[in-house]
């Protein structure tokens, strides 16, 4: 949303595992076309220059009210050689809003606090490759991630209990939405049904486990069928297309985005000029110019602090 530089009514995220490809011109078009204010690039080639990407992202004309992109530089650096060391976050949000909670080899958990908005948790993932393992490793990382997200959420809830539990997890999970790490109660506990997510936590073994809602299920069975194509994976079940890049949200986020007319969750197959060659069967087998993944877009409004406090007060009165 193009508004005054100090007002941030929404978060518009683009996640793309670029497979070390120099796709900055494509990313510029994606960012401009979708009004992106947080861009997450995984498998960023170490030989590429962050500065060149920033310059490209900030190419003129800069329009009134449009903030520049900056690189988010965590206080705690990811370990050299790990998946997170190859993740770059570029943002138009003020850098002072970002606070790192956890830096893991396979994910990072942040809280973002913007003026007059409820703070929210943002987790960014790059789980172990599906070619190496198709279950155990992803599930183990998912369990650790869920625990770290819950820590961040607890801290935010302690600071202000009137804030909604507003958490977003986006990234490359190297797992499908129905795999245990994503869907199981001890994993990320992400359900495909809004009603289930909104119906309170899942009870299992005498404990309560808050749900995530996973809007990615809507892409199963429809073009582009997934975010990654691989017809040579050693697996008794052949999928060809995998939905490995996903966004999960806490139930409180559901009312702040829309999946209908102009969906706020999209797997992007084109940057507005070129169609990504993953869509071409020949390129799927011969190698890609752009990436072996398709980019993922997610947008939601951010809850206003004052309005949410009023809403909670109203709910308490009604009860």
């Amino acid at each position, binding site marked *: 949303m193009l508004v005054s530089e100090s007002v941030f009514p929404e978060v518009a995220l683009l996640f793309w595992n670029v497979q070390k490809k120099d796709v900055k011109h494509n990313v510029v078009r994606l960012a*401009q076309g979708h*009004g992106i204010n947080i861009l997450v690039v995984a498998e960023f080639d170490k030989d590429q220059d962050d500065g060149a990407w920033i310059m490209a992202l900030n*190419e*003129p004309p*800069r329009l*009134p009210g*449009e903030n520049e992109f900056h690189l988010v530089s965590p206080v705690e650096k990811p370990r050299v050689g790990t998946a997170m060391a190859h993740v770059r976050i570029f943002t138009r949000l003020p850098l002072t809003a970002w606070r790192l909670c956890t830096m893991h080899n396979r994910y990072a958990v942040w809280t973002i606090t913007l003026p007059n908005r409820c703070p929210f948790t943002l987790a960014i993932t790059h789980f172990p490759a599906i070619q190496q393992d198709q279950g155990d490793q992803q599930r183990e990382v998912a369990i650790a991630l869920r625990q770290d997200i819950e820590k961040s959420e607890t801290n935010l809830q302690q600071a202000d209990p009137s804030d909604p539990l507003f958490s977003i997890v986006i990234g490359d999970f190297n797992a499908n939405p129905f795999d245990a790490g994503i869907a199981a109660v001890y994993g990320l506990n992400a359900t495909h049904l809004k009603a289930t997510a909104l119906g309170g936590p899942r009870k299992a073994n005498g404990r309560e486990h808050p749900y995530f809602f996973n809007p990615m299920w809507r892409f199963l069975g429809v073009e582009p069928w997934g975010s990654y194509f691989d017809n040579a994976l050693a697996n008794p079940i052949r999928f060809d297309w995998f939905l490995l890049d996903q966004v999960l949200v806490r139930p409180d986020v559901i009312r702040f985005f829309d999946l209908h007319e102009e969906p706020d969750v999209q797997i992007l197959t084109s940057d507005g*000029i070129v169609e990504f060659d993953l869509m071409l069967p020949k390129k799927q087998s011969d190698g890609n*110019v752009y990436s072996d993944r398709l980019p993922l877009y997610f947008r939601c409004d951010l809850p206003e602090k004052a309005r949410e406090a009023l809403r909670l007060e109203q709910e308490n009165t009604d009860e």
Partner: protein
Amino acid sequence: MSDLSITIPNFGVQTPTQKPPIEMLREAARTLKQQTGGVVEGSVFTSNPGRSNLFRHTFYLRARSLNDYTYPLFYVWHNADLYPANLLEAGEPQSNAQPCKDDTELRDKLNSIFASHGTRQLVEALMAQANT
């Protein structure tokens, strides 16, 4: 119930008095493709940042045979009134943007960009690589 109704004017019959910038850019893209035998094309990317009434067009040189290489040549942006439109060559600071009060002025300035030494060098370099 009252018989109040809303009257919607007939929007479709008005012919624009000036050629919209995007139409001029699309024409330039088509002509560039013809002049290079289809080796180098122009592509126009339009964004409407933040659902505002601002329109930003980027004119790219595009060589499909070079892994779909694209290179920004210039930018044009304007509001819903179309003119004045601002024109900026890629690589120039935004302070060098040239306001164009109407389609004639925009056409003349675009002609200058396409005729410039820098553009010729770029297009010829792309053609040479595409033909090897």
